[in-house]
């Protein structure tokens, strides 16, 4: 959709945001995007949504001072802004007044410059450093004094006498290269400070130098368990901007593929979850079914993990004639096996004790922390993008939005398990009715987006994934931002794990099911 952005001055920003939050119930901060508008200055775009009325609002604020940019924080209104604002500080050097923790989040603390600024030369100033990375235990807070000048204050993250354990960055059950500095009291977790960026590949910056069709390849590699859906979001965003209509056949294929991808992802989730809680046998069960699905994927587009299937205006290849038959066989097969998964794991005393009542996130926290996807729905938040902003064929198929209210590891686990069945249902509804038609709409070889801001969200396997593009009318985008579905999940680990046992940290992390390359981008 095209975004209609209202501009605010930095002085009125905080009050206006508070008003929106309280009067119009804008309690979900979807996105907080740092921007570099060159001459105009540096700024931030805020995307808000109300979970009660479904209303959306987009606002922006600009500061002309490029040397010392300051913008008031909104982290006291939405908890998720805390990590988003650190990201903006890391990439653009904008300091947020009143933010308690202004540290870099993705890049090393001794990194020079702010890479996403248009005038920055990140590679020139930052050769490969092979010394161990510094990790500070204190942080700086910037605040506005009464006379209008900016003061600084030192905040402590960990005291010297605190017992801090490093989980990661190379750890078998953090699902990638996540580093959590965990403060312990005996076996109880007191605080988690995530250190990200071990797989920060600078995708947003690379995109600025690529053309639109070239950009597509990178979206697959963000959250590789949602490769299909990520690329779907990017294609839809571009198609809506250039007003390109795709044929019903493509819509059918895309919807089916999205759901198959979701099934594959949740099967891996089950494998990882069981492995992390010590039930290694169950791991082999879902990988067996996943291989069946991989075979279908491979037959149709040649790739197993990274498919590169969606294109602007269609899909790369038509589906094979036996596709429907194979998929139906697969659906029947998984339904039969689904019971087997539950036999081996669910109901087991050990599994239940490690899941029920562990790692609870309340509804209000889930919304404030922006925890979307099955994890957020476990806390009773109806946040499925397929229902909120239907895209592709999701307004024509019947499916249930799985919501639980307990908010614990068990609820998150069961949400994913039941979503497998719902996804199977969606696939079975569509698979017999794929209409004839072309699989690729005709378009010009060079894609140019009109001037403006565009945003498209999809429901990936683990939450809302959004693509934001700002275009100046060229064949390259001016700025691309991805709403990571995993970043809020990692941020929520601190809330979920406080007061829990250290061993449960792994199980809670597994139930969140984050994928690190998507968080770090």
């Amino acid at each position: 959709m095209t975004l209609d952005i209202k501009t605010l001055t930095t002085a009125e920003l905080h009050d206006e945001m508070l008003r929106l939050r309280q009067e119009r119930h804008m309690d979900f901060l979807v996105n907080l995007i740092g921007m570099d508008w060159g001459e105009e200055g540096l700024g931030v775009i805020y995307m808000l949504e109300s979970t009660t009325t479904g209303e959306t609002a987009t606002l922006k604020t600009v500061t002309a001072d490029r040397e010392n940019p300051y913008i008031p924080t909104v982290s006291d209104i939405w908890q998720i802004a805390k990590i988003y604002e650190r990201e903006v500080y890391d990439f653009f050097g904008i300091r947020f007044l009143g933010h308690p923790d202004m540290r870099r989040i993705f890049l090393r603390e001794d990194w020079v410059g702010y890479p996403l600024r248009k005038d920055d030369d990140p590679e020139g100033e930052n050769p490969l450093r092979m010394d161990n990375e510094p990790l500070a235990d204190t942080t700086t807070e910037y605040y506005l004094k009464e006379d209008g000048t900016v003061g600084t204050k030192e905040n402590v993250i960990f005291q010297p006498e605190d017992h801090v354990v490093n989980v990661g960055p190379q750890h078998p059950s953090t699902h990638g290269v996540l580093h959590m500095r965990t403060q312990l009291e005996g076996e109880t977790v007191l605080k988690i400070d995530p250190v990200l960026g071990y797989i920060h590949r600078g995708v947003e910056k690379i995109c600025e130098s690529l053309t639109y069709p070239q950009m597509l390849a990178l979206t697959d590699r963000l959250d590789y368990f949602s490769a299909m859906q990520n690329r779907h979001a990017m294609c839809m965003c571009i198609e809506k901007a250039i007003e390109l209509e795709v044929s019903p056949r493509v819509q059918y294929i895309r919807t089916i593929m999205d759901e198959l991808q979701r099934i594959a992802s949740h099967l891996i989730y089950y494998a990882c979850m069981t492995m992390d809680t010590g039930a290694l046998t169950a791991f082999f069960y879902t990988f067996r079914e996943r291989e069946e699905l991989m075979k279908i994927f491979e037959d149709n587009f040649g790739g197993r993990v990274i498919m590169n299937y969606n294109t602007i205006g269609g899909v790369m290849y038509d589906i094979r004639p036996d596709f429907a038959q194979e998929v139906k066989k697969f659906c029947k097969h998984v339904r039969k096996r689904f019971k087997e998964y539950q036999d081996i794991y669910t109901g087991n005393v050990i599994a239940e004790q490690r899941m029920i009542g562990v790692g609870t996130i309340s509804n209000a926290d889930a919304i404030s922390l922006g925890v979307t996807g099955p994890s957020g729905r476990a806390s009773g938040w109806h946040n499925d993008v397929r229902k909120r902003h239907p895209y592709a064929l999701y307004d024509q198929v019947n499916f249930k939005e799985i919501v639980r209210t307990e908010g614990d590891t068990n609820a998150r686990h069961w949400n994913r398990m039941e979503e497998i069945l719902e996804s199977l249902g969606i696939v079975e509804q569509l698979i017999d009715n794929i209409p004839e038609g072309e699989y690729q709409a005709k378009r010009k070889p060079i894609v140019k987006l009109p001037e403006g801001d565009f945003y498209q969200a999809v429901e990936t396997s683990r939450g809302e994934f959004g693509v934001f593009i700002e275009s100046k009318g060229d064949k390259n985008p001016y700025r691309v931002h991805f709403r990571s579905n995993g970043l809020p999940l990692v941020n929520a680990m601190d809330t979920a794990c406080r007061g829990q046992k250290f061993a449960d940290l792994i199980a809670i992390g597994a139930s969140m099911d984050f994928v690190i390359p998507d968080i770090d981008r």
Partner: protein
Amino acid sequence: MGLISKPKIKSIPYEEFKDNETLEQMIDQLNAHGTNVLVASADKLINWGRSNSLWPMNFGTSCCAIELMAMGAARFDMARFGFEVTRVSPRQADLILVCGTITNKMAPVLKRLYDQMADPKYVIAIGGCTCTGGPFTKSYHVVKGVDKILPVDVYVPGCPPRPEAFYYGMMQLQRKMKVENYLGTVNRKQKDEHKAEAKALQKEIINQEQEA
């Protein structure tokens, strides 16, 4: 009088390997000045054992690690080749499987893990990102090829490579190991640059502790 001969892998015939020249050169080099009968025979036995029980250390950062998981599962089954004992501790591993993009922030961590491994040790670079930087070569935060920081033995390109490609790469390494002089001169022992430094530091610490 060359005692070191062509390495054999049961499941793939010699002709089907793509890079036989390098190995043959290696064999010629090793055989150039003749070999000790006893040592070479012992080598053969040791290398046979070593190459068939490789304990890899998983260093999975992104997509390629998923294919590694698939390799561990039933269909592709690593255990058939003796690779199934994946370790997460560098101290227990023979080789490190670098799967996925290595960023500037990760590079020192990876180097440290590599340094912690016991000799003889091997590196396999898996996936386009690890070999060259892949689709992210333009990035400001990606190491353009893991060979910039580690000595790589086998490259497995692909994005991500299929499990079969993984196996091919692992078998290449097996062949490479089979022609090595384990007891002889070409043992891949890494020189420790910091040995003197570390010893001095250790002494200092002991002295300090004694004083305290």
